[in-house]
């Protein structure tokens, strides 16, 4: 018996060995846990992945512009029923895009990816000597910033949202919605903390990020990543959304005082509207932007404002998804000499910077038009414009807004005039331009048109002024938020629909 037993043991051993070899097939399609978090290429992939997830959350169904522009109804849609519904604030309407826009899953993917990074980055630090302390510190700062940004973006859309700051991979428990005030306080803290560790530029021997970041040169990172100024610019938005205007003044001051350190500057109107200007690929003036770099074969058909706004003659498309009617254009661009858009004495547009085909049935909003590699060829509707969340002009106008609210008229006008001069307008004059705060918001509307700010500007304006009964009702009843997707509510029974949308 003993012999048989020996044979058996031997047999099992050999069999196991041979079979294991046949049965252990390492997937070439997915990276298993054992092959992740080992080397600094893994942290780079995870970090870039988190950026990629933010980009996908904002670009999916062109959400950034549907939230920010279409909802404000400055633009209207001739053919797309779903966009009409958004413009009418009929956010319960049954369209796939509206359902996608009421689903926060993509933002939580950002948050989960960030949480996981923070929990696992130490493993790489321990295993890969090439992964320096500084590299890790800067990575962590970016991840914390992106996570806070995701919460900020969600709070603007849904108000209260579940608050989750760890990956919970052992147990994905459902969470109820957390008070948005608490979340915003945390967001501000996180961003401030991140700002301390973020450099002004990457791979430029910044004191907080010496040497080449991930072995790539400065031009590779230009505008692509969150920087110190990014954090302060977004902080200004965070503070403004909460109505904490003193903080807005503080945060914007940091940006205005230091923008040259980040190679930032005010962009000319030509640069702003050129198809290979500010919006094309990536550059430092994209204070917080997500690029679709043409050279990286990253241009796409969707995820760009151009997909919504451009049509004939700018691209081959008969009717734009959204357009701005002529009378709206005239009421918004009502000052002579505006480089962005103004009429000459004969009533014809002086330039086609902001609007093409002005005299046609559909004036085409063509401020942003990065077609293919930044050309004006209408044949192929693939776009390479970056999604810019904020830029220096936006920060300057926020600063003006803060001073106007705080009663510092002089400084408010000074900041407003920076932008007015930049666009070749006469300095602000109360008699001609009316109420200061209104003039600042009007300037924002002109300058940042098509960049996904308008709806939030409207909310802030109406919070300050409270002079529009319809909007006041939205504000008081939570109607400024989006409904929560029914799919989410059915998954997580702790969630309650926003009362306005019940």
């Amino acid at each position, binding site marked *: 018996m003993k012999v048989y037993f020996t044979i*058996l043991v031997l047999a099992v051993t050999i*069999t196991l060995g041979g079979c294991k*070899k046949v049965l252990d097939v390492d997937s070439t399609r997915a990276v298993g*846990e054992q092959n992740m978090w080992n080397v600094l290429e893994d942290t780079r992939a995870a970090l870039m992945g988190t950026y990629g997830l933010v980009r996908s959350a904002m670009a999916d169904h062109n959400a950034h512009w549907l939230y920010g522009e279409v909802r404000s109804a400055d633009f209207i849609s001739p053919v797309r029923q779903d966009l009409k519904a958004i413009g009418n604030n009929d956010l319960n309407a049954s369209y796939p895009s509206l359902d996608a826009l009421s689903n926060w899953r993509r933002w939580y993917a950002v948050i989960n990816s960030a949480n996981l990074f923070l929990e696992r980055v130490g493993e790489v630090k321990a295993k890969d000597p090439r992964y320096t302390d500084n590299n890790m510190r800067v990575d962590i700062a970016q991840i914390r910033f992106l996570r806070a940004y995701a919460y900020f973006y969600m709070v603007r859309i849904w108000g209260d949202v579940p608050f989750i700051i760890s990956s919970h991979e052992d147990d994905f428990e459902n969470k109820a919605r957390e008070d948005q005030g608490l979340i915003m306080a945390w967001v501000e803290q996180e961003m401030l903390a991140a700002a301390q560790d973020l450099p002004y530029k990457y791979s430029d021997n910044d004191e907080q990020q010496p040497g080449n970041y991930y072995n790539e040169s400065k031009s590779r*990172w230009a505008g692509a990543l969150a920087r110190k100024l990014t954090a302060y610019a977004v902080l200004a938005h965070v503070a403004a959304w909460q109505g904490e205007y003193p903080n807005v003044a503080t945060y914007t001051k940091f940006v205005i005082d230091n923008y040259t350190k980040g190679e930032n500057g005010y962009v000319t109107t030509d640069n702003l509207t050129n198809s290979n200007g500010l919006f094309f690929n990536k550059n430092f003036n994209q204070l917080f932007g997500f690029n679709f770099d043409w050279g990286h074969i990253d241009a*796409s058909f969707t995820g760009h404002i151009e997909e919504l706004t451009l049509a004939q003659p700018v691209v081959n498309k008969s009717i734009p998804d959204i357009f701005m009617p002529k009378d709206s254009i005239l009421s918004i661009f009502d000052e002579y000499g505006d480089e962005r858009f103004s009429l000459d004495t004969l009533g014809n547009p002086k330039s086609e910077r902001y609007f093409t085909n002005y005299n046609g049935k559909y004036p085409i909003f063509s401020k942003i038009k990065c077609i293919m590699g930044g050309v004006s060829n209408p*044949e192929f509707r693939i776009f390479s414009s970056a999604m810019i969340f904020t830029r220096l002009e936006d920060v300057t106008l926020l600063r003006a807004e803060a001073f106007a609210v705080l009663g510092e008229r002089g400084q408010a006008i000074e900041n407003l005039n920076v932008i007015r001069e930049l666009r070749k307008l006469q300095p602000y004059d109360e008699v001609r331009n009316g109420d200061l705060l209104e003039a600042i918001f009007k300037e924002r509307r002109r300058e940042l048109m098509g960049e996904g700010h308008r709806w939030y500007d409207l909310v802030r304006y109406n919070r300050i002024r409270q002079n529009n009964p319809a909007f006041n009702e939205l504000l008081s009843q939570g109607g400024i938020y989006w409904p929560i997707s029914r*799919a989410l509510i059915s998954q997580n029974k702790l969630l309650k629909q926003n009362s306005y949308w019940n």
Partner: protein
Amino acid sequence: MPKKLHVGWLYQMLAIFSCSLAMIFDKAYGEPLYAGPPDLAILMQDSIVQDSTALDSAKIDTVYEVKLPLPLKKVGRPAQNLDATVDDLARFPAVSLQQYLKGQAAGLYVQEPNGEPGSVQSMLIRGASMPLLSARELYQNQPLIVLDGVQLIGEHPFAYDIQQYDFNRIGTATNLLTNIDMANIASVEVLKDLPAVAIYGPRGANGVILLKTKQAGNRRAISFNAYTGLVQRPTVATMNGDYENSFRQQFYDRYTPAGRYTEDDVYPLYLSDSLNADYYGPSNWTDSYYRNALIYAVNASIAGGTDRANFRFALGNLKNKGVADNTGLDRYSASFTLNMKPIKWMTFSAMFNGNRIERQRNRNLRDRFALMNYIPDLSAPLAPNKESYDRYLKNFENSFDDNNSNIVEGFAGLLFDFGPLTFSTKFSVDYNEGYRDLFYPRTLLENNSFASNYYGYSQRIQFDNLLTYKVPLNGLHDLSLEAGQFVQWDTYKYNYAYAYRGVNDFIKLNLLESDPGKDEYLTPLAFPRELVYKFLDRTKHNLLAFYGRANYSFDEKYKVSLLLRGDASSNAQPTNRWLFTPVLAAEWNIKEDLMTQQDFFDVFNLRAGAGRTGRINAFDNFAQGPQYTAEVGFTGNVTTPGYNGFAVLTRPYSSGWIGYDLPWAYSDQLNLGLDLGFLQNRIKLQLDGYIRQDKNMMLAIPAYAEYGYNYAQQSGMEVHNSGLDIGIQATIIPTDRPFSWTTRLNVNLNKNKLNALPGGLDEIVLGNRKLEVGKPIDQYWLFQNEGIYLADDEVPLVNGQPMKFNGTALKAGDPKWVDTNNDQVISSEDKTLVGNMLPKVAGGFTNQFFYQKWSLTADLYFNLGRKILNQEMANRFDFINREGTNTMDAVKEITFWEKRGDYSKYPLYNPWSTVIPYRAEQDLFLENGAFLKMRTLSLSYDMSEWLNKRTAVVKKLRVYVSGHNLFTLTPYTGQDPELVNYTGYDTGYGLPIPRTYTLGVQVDL
């Protein structure tokens, strides 16, 4: 793993042997290899024997010298085969195996959602074992096809991962079961019961279709089979812009004050200009779209040999043209079989089957745009006028779409025969590769040319060993033992690239710099680098199995067989690699045992089987547990590779979380069968009842959204299928009369039920489907429609407010959807599960009449208890949401101008309403999809005798004339109730299955 110890040391020795061999092959070939159950034993079978089953193996021995020992008794398989003969099957002008077998065997359900020759079709044996949510599940439900012991591999659905639209898989999208020329086939068996399929292990979990190639005898034989025929252009009703315009005007008249619903409304230009002859002129596009076309097939074979060696060699060519859109398929095939017996105790056998399939695909816009991932301006759809349509078609002259597949399979095997002990070893390969090289010139799409190149292959290598021992017992006892092992190596791979905007229309290839010395090495030359997209992907799967079986028979009256097997899959998680399963089968020949004295019954045989078989994970990522991948794309841009030019790794947020400890899925089955023959076997009846429970199956559950995931991939779904296969064959007028009549009926009754969902859930919603425990898995989830609210005040008031649909107040012109849960609001909670996508009853009914040398075959095919959702009709009414936008929904094919169905049945809702009154998901568009089809009416004349009198050369000569798909009886109002895929939605995209007339000849010399 410890469980293995129970099986014993013999088993282990075999394991050592096989694993070592596996390692050797791994080393020697780099790419791994396969194995199927060694069917060497039945290779020598008479070429036209049909009731080739199992128990009556005696005749196999008697024919030739090159013969094999008695095959082991296969207990539990039917005693008689009631299906059509291969000669009859071969007369059907089919392109694919699915078409040959449709309606021919009880329990085998074939879906032919498209009449385009060579397009993908699916089969289900005894229902679906999981909800068919996408092409991925459909793939996981396909039966195993075994050709002479070679398990065919097919094509893996992993390529769908890079596709925004899943209408077709990238690549050739050719049905790979077009590689079977029925003229080469000696027998077809559909194995359904667990005792019959158990030997194939997890691969056979969905049933097995066993094909055997014709073998040579020991004298020279030549055969020739050919047909030629005509596919007939269908007659359809067409319409033009005027018709469509007046159709839409009724909505404008009713719901708009001044011809527009809102100020910004746009009426489509192509309908508003009644002077435009393209749209408003004659609608005669059908002359260029539909056609009559010729088809033919020819197969010639030569066979010969001696007592010690023989061979058969066959060549074939087939051309099948579709009636619509210039589609067609050409097949070139070669088949070769060889048997040698160099020494008394050893036989060598080999088989090769090679096919080349060239397929001309349709030119519809949807498939082209889906391939290009680009939708051009859709404001001017294809016009119904022939001149205009011809101008469009002319653009294709400068394009090409080479869509070819090469499919080869073969084996080489040795059988050692030492009397009671035999050992067989077999090495087999199935390989298929597909190429699609395509170019669209600038003129076809807004001055943008497009090139795409696909190359992909699937390869299965199998290595099989089987040891059998016939225990020398005396008297009435008969015991045989088997021990077998196989290893199977599957590899799937593709390379795919596409590019836009080439430099001109003369360079149609996506050329790359080929000089490795240059910096620009591999940079595209003819297409801009920034618009070239490249994809590589590969997946592997290895399967390993050991099994042992004992068969015992007492006096041919009682038989029992026990199979024990262990299977391991590389797609199972390392902690759960192995699955051990038993199958027990028993048979009682009551006729021989108890009824020898009475002569009413000629056959009375009872069979039973019970056991378990594993189900394989189709995707290798399940084996990895928690993992990372690159999923940072978004709707419309799914293949985003990274950010800022860097590859990324994220959790699989879109496809779903995968955890640890996922067990094997398995299928438990209970079979009970009864074979009856009475009245001198004039009536044969076969009844097979079954219960199958598929357990522990994976399902993507919508979950963890607050952790970023779309789904959680969880195990624990359980689906129950039960039913009855009925086969009846009756000789109504016996064949010894001048006029005779036989009739054959096969029916499957099947019903399915969801027994459990992962995580103990009661129900989940997946897209427009809902799965509810206790309900069937193939039901539609729809609103119940009860008409229309003609006025605002007809809408019920809830707390003084009009009733709401998902938060939007209902108004005049909106549908009356039933508030089934009485919660005073209409929401998806009010949708109910109704109707079945799969038929509850399906089968075939064949009658054959013989008069002297004439015979007439009439073959009917039917489906009952099945519903179809007429999405094409819903789309027609929902024109407001399908006009002017740049989405796939707005694409209008040329067949938009074909009038299908009855518009007057539907209420006139307000199409602008944001509740989307004409959504497809309501019972308004659900129709009865039952049908009865005349598949074949064939008249043949046997000239053998007549010729035999004149020459001894001709053994058989039969000429025939047939008509196929002659008529369909159905209450369904859409196109054709068959042209619906697994989703049950009739999208209107199926090309017609043509009426076909053939004239053919079958000659044996």
